[in-house]
């Protein structure tokens, strides 16, 4: 591993890295007398190739200096292994890893903490384990203590600390190492909200100081907000590298697809293919093809198009206070009588915002259904918080197999002048009541009559 400092260029260069682990089932984990004897009797052969797990199957990744990179992927996809390789805890089975600069890794908080020692003593030992010199630690001691907000507790034994205090102290030491490359594994959520913000602030400080940050997290929001680059690791390979929004979007879709196909989301690394998530089709509405990953049914009733209309015409984006029509065009292959239509709306986290169908609302549809036509669902007001939503549309009988199910194929962007949060925006007005007189406050369009 090179530690030569390049003023700019790439901070991390990973070339075709493969990492295999010996499979450690409980019986195989340690050498026992029996296993040794058996092996010896069999002629001292090493265990066969199949008892290896390939955690990383050829990773190529270059991280430019000063970038904040978020690594995402499902459990067992190889994210943490990749981090440990970068940190130098593991060494690659083959391939090369070049880390250019001083590394500090926050894989675990409080390495080497001793419960009977005071916070101060532990700062020293932990700092040295993290690679600081004694002089450096002494110079930063006050800053570390101040950041941890422990106050006088810093001279008490660590065993008397609450878990929040423990984490704060550890985080505080780790972020004062002053690395060129900071490697973080899912520990930003340390302590209470206040400290969480401080930690993020510290991260931003690193970022603006031009340090390279590599972050593994399951919180896609963090990746979208803080990272310059997202890396999606899937089944031991890099599935996609790119702008965070795009990568997380595709990742979400792939996860949704996997769930829908009720893919066994068991231990990924043990699966034959490494537990890869399904491919997201690039052109979702390709011709009336039969069953695909996000469209299935027997197609007796076929949904041939779904469009969004505002009073001004067809739209892809709509203001939350505007009305919206969702039009569903359908054709039938044979006369069907038992049919209804349903929709479900999901936010970008995959949370169902709303779902309904013509059965539960007792909507009378003509029987039999005309050979083709358009069903229109009219919303007087969208009433959602700003964001990107996806729509499921379905034609189905009261019971049994769907005619045509479209999963997440339609995307609707909701705009708003007000950056409110949550999922839904109920029609509302604010009012203030001074004694004896009422006055209405009308912020923006929120108070538009509905």
């Amino acid at each position: 591993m090179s530690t030569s400092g390049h003023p700019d260029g790439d901070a991390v260069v990973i070339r075709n890295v493969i990492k295999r682990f010996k499979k450690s089932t409980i019986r195989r984990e340690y050498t026992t007398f029996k296993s040794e004897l058996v092996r010896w009797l069999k002629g001292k052969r090493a265990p066969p190739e199949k008892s290896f797990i390939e955690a990383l199957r050829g990773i190529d990744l270059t991280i430019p200096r000063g970038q904040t990179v978020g690594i995402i992927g499902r459990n067992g996809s190889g994210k943490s292994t990749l981090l440990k390789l970068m940190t130098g805890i593991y060494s690659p089975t083959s391939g090369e890893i070049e880390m250019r600069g001083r590394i500090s890794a926050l894989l675990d908080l409080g390495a080497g903490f001793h419960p009977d020692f005071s916070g101060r003593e532990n700062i020293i030992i932990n700092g040295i384990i993290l690679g600081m010199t004694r002089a450096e630690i002494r110079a930063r001691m006050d800053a570390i203590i101040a950041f941890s907000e422990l106050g006088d507790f810093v001279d008490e034994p660590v065993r008397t600390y609450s878990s929040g205090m423990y984490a704060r102290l550890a985080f505080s030491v780790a972020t004062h190492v002053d690395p060129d490359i900071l490697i973080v594994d899912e520990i930003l959520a340390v302590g209470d909200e206040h400290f969480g913000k401080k930690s993020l602030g510290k991260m931003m400080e690193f970022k603006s100081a031009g340090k390279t940050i590599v972050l593994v997290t399951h919180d896609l929001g963090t990746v979208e907000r803080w990272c310059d680059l997202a890396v999606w690791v899937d089944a031991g390979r890099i599935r996609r590298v790119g702008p965070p929004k795009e990568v997380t979007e595709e990742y979400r879709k792939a996860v949704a697809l996997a769930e829908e196909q009720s893919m066994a989301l068991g231990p990924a690394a043990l699966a034959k293919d490494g537990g890869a998530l399904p491919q997201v089709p690039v052109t979702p509405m390709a011709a009336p093809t039969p069953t695909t990953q996000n469209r299935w049914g027997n197609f007796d009733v076929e949904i041939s198009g779904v469009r969004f209309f505002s009073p001004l015409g067809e739209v892809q984006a709509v203001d939350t206070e505007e009305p919206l029509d969702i039009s569903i065009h359908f054709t039938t292959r044979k006369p069907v009588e038992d049919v209804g239509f349903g929709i479900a709306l999901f936010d970008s986290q995959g949370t169902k915002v709303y779902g309904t169908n013509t059965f539960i609302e007792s909507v009378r549809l003509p029987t039999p259904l005309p050979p083709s036509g358009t069903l229109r669902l009219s919303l007087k007001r969208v009433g959602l918080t700003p964001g990107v939503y996806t729509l499921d549309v379905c034609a189905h009988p009261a019971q049994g197999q769907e005619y045509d199910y479209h999963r997440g194929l339609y995307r609707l962007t909701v705009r708003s002048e007000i950056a409110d949060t949550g999922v839904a925006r109920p029609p509302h007005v604010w009012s203030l009541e001074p004694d004896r007189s009422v006055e209405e406050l009308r912020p923006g369009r929120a108070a538009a009559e509905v």
Partner: protein
Amino acid sequence: MFRNLRELYQYRGLLLSLTQRELKARYRGSVLGFLWTFLNPTLQMFVYTLLFSVYMRQQIEHYAFFMFIGLLPWIWFASSVGGGASSISDRRDLLTKVRFPAQVLPATVVVTNLCNFMLSVPLLIGLGIFLGHWPSWHVLLFPVVVFVQLCVTLALAYLLSAINVTFRDLQQIIANLLTMWFFVTPIFYRVTTIPVAFREVMVLANPMAVMITSYQSIFYDHELPAAGPLAMWMGIAAVLLWMASELFERRREDFAEVV
């Protein structure tokens, strides 16, 4: 091997801090605190003195002093080898979470116990003076013997710790072996008690017998220790150290994964 030792030197700050931590942590929270460093071997000495000079009479003058000379280096050796064997396998927290030089761990155990040993040497000399054994100029050779013992102990600790990561039975085997080793080493008795027929072999094959008879020569008999066996074990220690660092080098990439 030199690379290994050089790296160990590079990480001396870490080694020192960990040693300090171990020394401080051992008796942290106890009322007598650091005094236990001296009390433990002293109390052990009383037990053995009672046993061997009152119950089973040994014809050795100043038996307590004689036995203390052998007991102290033995405690250093036994706790280093016993603790060293599991020094890597016990520290999963460090090895899997930070980039950590594994060779520091067995070294820490050996050095910590060396410190304990050195701290109790004044006690030994004090006891000698009390019983009329003023240290003679032969004491100048004491550091040499300590150095040879350090090399042997370090080599063993390295070998055992590396093997124990995958072969956990070793730490149990070692614990039992040490008890036996304790009694075949001339700590309670003069080496002349060993039957002549295999005295030579028993002493030469046992590094601790060589060390302890050397300490006895220096402090008790006030004469020069036999140079031959010491030189031989210095040579063996060098070979062992080389082997240990080769093995360590080859295995250490696996430590984080297997431990």
